[in-house]
């Protein structure tokens, strides 16, 4: 059910681990669903004085697809300008992995959300104005998180 590319990234994920003093951190997902992604970013400036993803790392709790998409998204956005990084779509991640099983598509969405959250966190820490697209996506993530947390509370523990 998993492509060779998915298995390759899963078995040897790129850019994993914690980052010391990250410029931004994005935390998405929920233990109840079985997928949690944390993305750390360091932002730098290129020759054109544009901000870009200088370094990126992830930590993921989840299935094969969750780990593979985490690895792939970090590969895809590393070195890209913030704008270009955020334009990486779930379909681009899926295609780069030679496809995902239909029930695992949400992992690719989670990966784009994690990156968006990390950028949002960076901009917020910088006390900068948050572009509306990032803000809108952040609000969606926040809402989903709330629903999940509520669900989690109702679970027996």
């Amino acid at each position, binding site marked *: *059910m*998993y492509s060779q590319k998915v*298995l390759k990234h*899963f*078995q040897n*994920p790129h850019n*994993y*681990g914690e980052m010391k003093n990250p410029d931004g951190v994005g*935390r998405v997902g929920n*233990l*109840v*669903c*079985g*997928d*949690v992604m*944390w993305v750390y970013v360091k932002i730098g400036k290129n020759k054109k004085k544009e901000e870009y993803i200088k370094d990126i790392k992830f*930590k*993921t*709790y*989840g*299935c*094969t697809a*969750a*780990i593979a998409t985490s690895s792939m998204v970090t590969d895809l956005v590393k070195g890209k300008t913030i704008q270009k990084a955020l334009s990486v779509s779930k379909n681009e991640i899926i295609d780069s992995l030679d496809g995902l099983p239909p*029930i695992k598509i949400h992992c690719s969405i989670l990966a784009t959300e994690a990156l968006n959250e990390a950028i949002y966190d960076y901009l917020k820490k910088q006390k900068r104005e948050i572009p509306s697209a990032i803000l809108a996506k952040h609000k969606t993530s926040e809402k989903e998180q709330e629903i999940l947390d509520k669900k*989690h509370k109702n*679970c*027996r*523990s």
Partner: protein
Amino acid sequence: MPLNFKTYYFDYASTTPVDPKVVSVMAPYFNKKFGNPNSLHHLGREANQVLMQSRETIAKIIQASPEEIIFTSSATESNNLALKGVAWANKNRGNHIIISSIEHDCVLNSARWLEGQGFSVTYLPVNREGLVFLNDLKKAIKPQTILVSIMHANNEIGTIEPIEAIGDLCRKKNIFFHTDAAQTFGKISIDVRKMNIDLLTASAHKIYGPKGSAFLYVRKGVKIEPLLHGGEQESALRSSTVNMPGVVGLATAAALSQKLMKKENAKMAKMRDQLIKAICKNIPSVSLNGHPTKRLSNNINLRFKAIEGESLLMLLDAAGVCVSTGSACSSAKLTASHVLLSCGLRPEEAHGSLRITLGRHTTNQEINYLLKALAKAVKKLRNLSPYF
């Protein structure tokens, strides 16, 4: 797969390789002794003779009469026949059915389907170890109760249920008692008379027999409707041309398992306990799911903190090790195991669980390999996990 890739199989509860002895007994029934047992000519009569012998072999193992054995295609079919067949045939007596909340999906979903047909179902709770309590059953029984179905042992956590006491209670209350023995037939001695079992499900492929062959024991006097109508084979309870290679394979595998039962159980229980001990010693933050002693001799089910089970399974798979999370049937679903959740585990605990099941061919060398591969995989995934 690379040429030197070696498979380490630890998923015997999911399915088993057919024993070579079983294969050779089955072989002639594909193309030499291929007769239809319903045919009147000599090839048919010969097949019928063998069918009767196979029925006797199975009946003897569980202390039933041959005419009480109905050959089917799978444990799923047997369970469907037991639940739907008994419910349908006894609806004039009542519409209430009791099952446990940790039954296999084929029992659960048959019960759910019956709910849509006007039956009401009580799902009995289990404790942390997966045990059903007699008192809960007593309380759940109503005047309208017609059937109780509680599995002999659970397929995921291996907990063995007190079916003798349950059978005794059901008999006293005049309620039919069905047990899904897919995980125990050939592994635990079953006496349907002594245990007051009215219906029992078992399958060949769990005991080194072929896939596509199973049976349902139906005690004489149990009112039951068939699911399949046609040529009225199997006492008109299961119309279909009998799968002769499958039936012969089932009987041969069952006889072999019965013969080896004591020896195999002793060997596997020892391996199981040593492996549990070694894993808990070598890997931090591991807990055992299920019951410490009322447990199938080949079942280990563990939960690993801060790890998701599917990724652990896939990482072990890359090292040649076959294990499962919950049951193989649920691997296409995203929800945590209903068995583990019913035991009161939190979803993240259930997600982090892994089933290791031993079998006839498990060696100490394989166990040692598994131990090393497991420790390595857990370490790797915990390095990736934000929670460890």
